[in-house]
């Protein structure tokens, strides 16, 4: 099992997306509202043509030290993706603000990790909009 975390803390998976592999997209070119899993070595640009088809993208974090997911999420937002973006895997509470600022909506971690890093440690970073140099330097969206 796994735990979904957003600004409210530990929550149940309200959207209940069914995530599929990216190659599923080609097979279902007409389908709307597909949710896909992306590995951390994927290129966001490869999805540029399919963004309107997607309801959600779940990006893998094989290790908390692998920061590619942050740039992938940011790139999806730059390409105009407005659907749901979820970080899944080894994400630690201290990275929650980075994830939110990079364009993720929520984080999905294992129950083991959730037990070791309980809700209060994530809620402590729910103020991710505060103290953010980036938001001072860039265009107000």
């Amino acid at each position, binding site marked *: 099992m796994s735990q979904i975390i957003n600004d409210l803390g530990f929550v149940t998976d309200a959207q209940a997306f069914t995530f599929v592999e990216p190659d599923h997209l080609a097979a279902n070119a007409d389908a709307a509202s597909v949710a896909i899993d992306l590995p951390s070595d994927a*290129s966001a640009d490869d999805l540029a043509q399919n963004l309107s088809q997607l309801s959600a993208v779940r990006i893998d974090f094989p290790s*908390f*030290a*692998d*920061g*590619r997911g*942050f*740039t*992938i999420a*940011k*790139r999806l937002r*730059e390409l105009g993706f407005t659907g749901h973006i979820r970080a899944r895997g080894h994400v*630690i509470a*201290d*990275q929650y*603000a*980075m*994830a*939110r*600022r*990079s364009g993720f909506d929520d984080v999905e971690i294992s129950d083991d990790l959730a037990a*070791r*890093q*309980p809700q209060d*440690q994530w809620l*402590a970073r729910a103020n991710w909009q*505060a*103290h*953010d*140099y*980036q938001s*001072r*330097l*860039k*265009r*107000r969206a």
Partner: protein
Amino acid sequence: MYSYNDFDEAFVRERVAQFSAQVERRIDGSLTEDEFKPLRLMNGLYLQLHAYMLRVAVPYGTLSAPQMRQLAYIADTWDKGYGHFTTRQNIQYNWPELKDVPAMLSALADVGMHAIQTSGNTIRNVTADQFAGAAADEIEDPRPVAELLRQWSTDHPEFQFLPRKFKIAVTGSSTDRAVTKAHDIGLRMVRNDAGEPGFEVIIGGGLGRTPMVGKIVRDFLPKADLLPYCEAIVSVYNVLGRRDNKYKARIKITVHENGLDVMRDKIEAAFAEKKAQFDGVDQEMLAEIEQHFAAPAFKTADTSGYEAARLANPAFRSWTDTNLAAHRADGYSIVSISIKKHGATPGDATSDQMGVMADLAEKYGHGELRISHEQNVILPHVHQSDLHAVYSALRAADLATANIGLISDIIACPGMDYCALATARSIPVAQEIAERFDELKLEHEVGPLKIKISGCINACGHHHVGHIGILGLDRAGVESYQITLGGSGMEDATIGERAGRGFSADEIVPAIERLVLGYLDLRHDADETFLEAYRRLGAAPFKAVLYPSDAKADAA
């Protein structure tokens, strides 16, 4: 000088609070050491051979007098009464305990300083020309841009877990005192045909295991495009850089493996999109930052006393010959305070010395100090009429060594006396070389010569770009020192060539002595520096003096 606004202040306070909580969570087991390590590194805290080490950022090498005093206070309160200035313009404390680090960070925050991103796989403290804002040869003071880069890179959400560390250096002058060609991004200020200032952007330089001179990715980048362009470079690197092998993870390898043209195309494509996200707010901030760096109110005064003192006092004259550089304002000089007394540890200053330097900056130097990558302290703005008073005070504090740019002005990393990564010691080698040439009374005759010593292949001591580089290695359980020749870290950046087999700890100082005495025989005249002689003659005659028995064998 830049001073924190409410946002900066709140940011560092929040960060101290976060780190305090992280320390508690490490101790209570919420965070494993694997998870805590990158977090402590992001806050400058290493675990070394004998203790923790806290690396404090001195952004672009600039300090105010109160900041220097606070560094002294921290050394006295939580360390052993001294600090070590590094080749990245930072200061390191070698003996803190884990529980005290939040208090140290809080004391730093009190004077608008921090240890954020002085380590870890993230964008590190931005370094700059130590003579910025004072040098006679400068186009513009690069520090406002460096401060803008500091704000942009601090806590940048995408770039806290890069494939490897990422270093940016900036210079506002054609003379490259910031080693821009040995950085992940080097920014060298130039003017375009219209006379507007902008940057030559260099990427993929670096020393370490695979030393490379950086390559120019953009001849001219308008100043206003700096942040989106840098963000483009780092985002391309974040997804393209290798994560399977940490020795191949720096951007120099990414550039080498993908080719400069491929990198440029990707960067320019990303830049085109990034540019739209910056709509000039950053330029408004830059304009505000620039006001902080307005030149001090330079004074005019009679300098005849200075000339008279030079004539009357040979020791003072010698110090003015080596330790001053040309200032842009009439009657002013840039003073380099040598932290390289013969036999002392390069870059180490006691808290008392820090206090003296802070006082001098306040009394005679418009309140400013700088740290150079060559591990010295600079008073950037001293009027010549005050030089003798400054010299006398420095002399009383054991800080008046007249050796800037000479053989005893050695860069040395901490090496195996402190560093967990080191393969051999660096400090004792530096100490012995300096003492030996002081004994020989030869260093002024030898003239400009840069010796740089690293205690491992990671090259924090910049040995590849030393005119003479020394690399300490572990050869079968014994310290061994390899010499490189002909390197340069200036605008003519060159990676030194290996001279041949290594020398033991007992042999290395005599080997350097042979090499330098050999140079005195080989040089054209006293005006030809070691580096010029090496470039003219090539390695062979220098190898012959280094390895005399080989030369004899060849002749036989």
